[in-house]
């Protein structure tokens, strides 16, 4: 059984590796977008899916990362990919500063405040804050990234960069889910009073969830800036946050597979029905309402956590018995 799954996973990876050979540049680019949104939605998934914090300002963190890269590259000539850790770090610091005072707000209030934050960030970018962000036009002329002396410029080059990063993200998220940290976040989501009572420092864990999610979104911002070579405030509007939010909610909060399916549906599907592009958001809105009424947990909810209580008890009993003997 386990073997089958591993084989299947390998087959999917191989297929992904070969995919750009069969696609024209346009469709390769569509896949690049799906990959970017998957990574972003996975980073939002830590905050929204695992910790259950209704955060609708993720585009703000993404913007901090992208602008860090753009400014460092165009003003100081730092190679694009070297800026990635710093982009992540700055986004994380930003998240720490803004999330700390609002972390205790409940559900819908947090949602409103995070919308306020993403709007303030956008207005700040449009107003050319610190004279660095280039105002409403944004920043252009970001250099192409170099990987081991090879310049990435075609969509298929970016395909490997983006999906490579995406696979890394999936691996990281999978490890996170099954860690003490992931379990603590899920406990907080289910019942934060009980979690607090069990010795989990809920404020601390919620803050770390924000910081981690922002760090990852910031790094994704670097890739976005490198791919587009031009960034403007409009790319980080409130609607970007809504799309990410919808991906996580429709796919299934806290589920990696759900998020993947969600981003294929929400980013990929409109490309197939391009003639109906105007109807896209209308259908999203309708889908959100219907989903909440008929299937609150999303398309592919995470499998329930299983613990082998019996084995644990036996082991404990064995340890006690051994102690006596």
């Amino acid at each position, binding site marked *: 059984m386990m073997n089958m799954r591993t084989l299947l996973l390998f087959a999917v990876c191989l297929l992904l590796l070969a995919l750009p050979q069969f696609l024209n540049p346009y469709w390769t680019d569509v896949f690049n977008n799906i990959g970017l949104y998957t990574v972003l939605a996975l980073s939002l998934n830590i905050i929204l899916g695992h910790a259950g914090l*209704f955060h609708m300002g993720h585009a703000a963190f993404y913007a901090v990362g992208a602008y860090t890269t753009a400014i460092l590259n165009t003003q100081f000539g730092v190679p694009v990919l070297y800026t990635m850790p710093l982009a992540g770090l700055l986004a994380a610091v930003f998240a720490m500063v803004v999330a700390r005072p609002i972390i205790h707000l409940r559900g819908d209030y947090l949602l409103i405040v995070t919308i*306020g934050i993403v*709007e303030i960030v956008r207005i700040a970018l449009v*107003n050319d804050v610190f004279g660095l962000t280039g105002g409403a036009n944004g920043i252009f002329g970001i250099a192409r990234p170099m990987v081991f002396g090879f310049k990435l410029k075609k969509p298929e080059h970016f395909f490997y960069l983006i999906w490579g990063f995406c696979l890394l993200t999936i691996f990281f998220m999978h490890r996170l889910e099954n860690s003490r940290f992931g379990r603590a976040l899920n406990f907080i989501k289910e019942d934060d009073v009980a979690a607090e009572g069990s010795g989990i420092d809920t404020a601390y864990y919620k803050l770390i969830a924000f910081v981690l999610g922002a760090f990852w979104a910031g790094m994704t911002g670097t890739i976005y800036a490198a791919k587009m070579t031009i960034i403007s405030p409009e790319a980080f509007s409130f609607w970007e946050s809504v799309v990410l939010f919808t991906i996580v909610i429709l796919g299934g909060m806290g589920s990696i597979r759900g998020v993947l399916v969600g981003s294929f549906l929400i980013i990929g599907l409109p490309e197939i029905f391009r003639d109906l592009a*105007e109807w896209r958001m209308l259908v999203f*809105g309708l889908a*959100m309402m219907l989903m*909440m009424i008929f299937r609150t947990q999303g398309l592919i909810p995470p499998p329930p956590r299983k613990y082998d209580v019996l084995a644990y008890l036996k082991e404990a009993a064995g340890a006690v018995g051994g102690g006596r003997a």
Partner: protein
Amino acid sequence: MEEFFQQLTNGLAVGGIYALIALGYTMVYGVLKLINFAHGDLFTIGAFLGLTLLTSLGLSDHMGPLLGVIALAVMVIVLVGLIGFLLERTAYRPLRNSQRLSAVVSALGASIFFQNAVMLIWGARPLVYPHNILPTTAISIFGMDVPLVRILMFSTSLVLMYALYYLTHKTKIGAAIRAAAIDQGAAKLMGIDVNRVIALVFCIGPALGGAAGVMVGLYYGQISFTMGWMYGLKAFTAAILGGIGNIPGAMVGGLLLGVIEALGAAYISIAWKDAISFLVLILILIVRPTGLLGERVADKV
């Protein structure tokens, strides 16, 4: 001093609109503990419906400006109230007993749905209200010229607010609404049909929002399908500022926010006008989540 006074009257006129929209948020929140994200878009629908009715029926030509606008407002109030009623039936009632946040997501979905429906019906480009309806004269107060439109706007919102205050605080229906807001279970035991109260709240709130939409159309002359979002967010800020769930609070909060915003735009920076409102929202939620007139327990936040 002249500029300060001008900004003050402008702020009060806009604040009246915020207050009318904020009343819808605060009433729904009071009864259902739900932030009705679609409320701002119902306001947009009001503005667009108003424009269509105004131009297609030629109301102001047949009845004269004053009666025409009043007839228009009544029609929009009825229609938007009906949409609000249907919204509650379809999107919120099935979620009454599920998790609170499911209802929030559903409300958000409804907001996206309405916004795009407006775009598909009336087009993505901003539309223009006919600008020969409202008087353009100014009258002199304490030696300073104030456009008559501002005074009309402000007094209209005051009249509507007083009507709502009378309804909620002096009538039997109002007592039922307030009772349902305090304790639904106990209200049911007292023989109040809570479902009817909720349906009524979902008619009155959007109706006031729709009226505000017509007022914005007449005052600014231009309407676009995305405007409800910004107005909605600001009105929500106003509701929080006054203490959410508190009807006089929403009125005070709306007027206050309008004045803060107008003065901020004049004396700090017009480019940061919207950011000032959001900053007020964030600061209020951090420092005094109960709002200015709210006496609710901290648990609500």
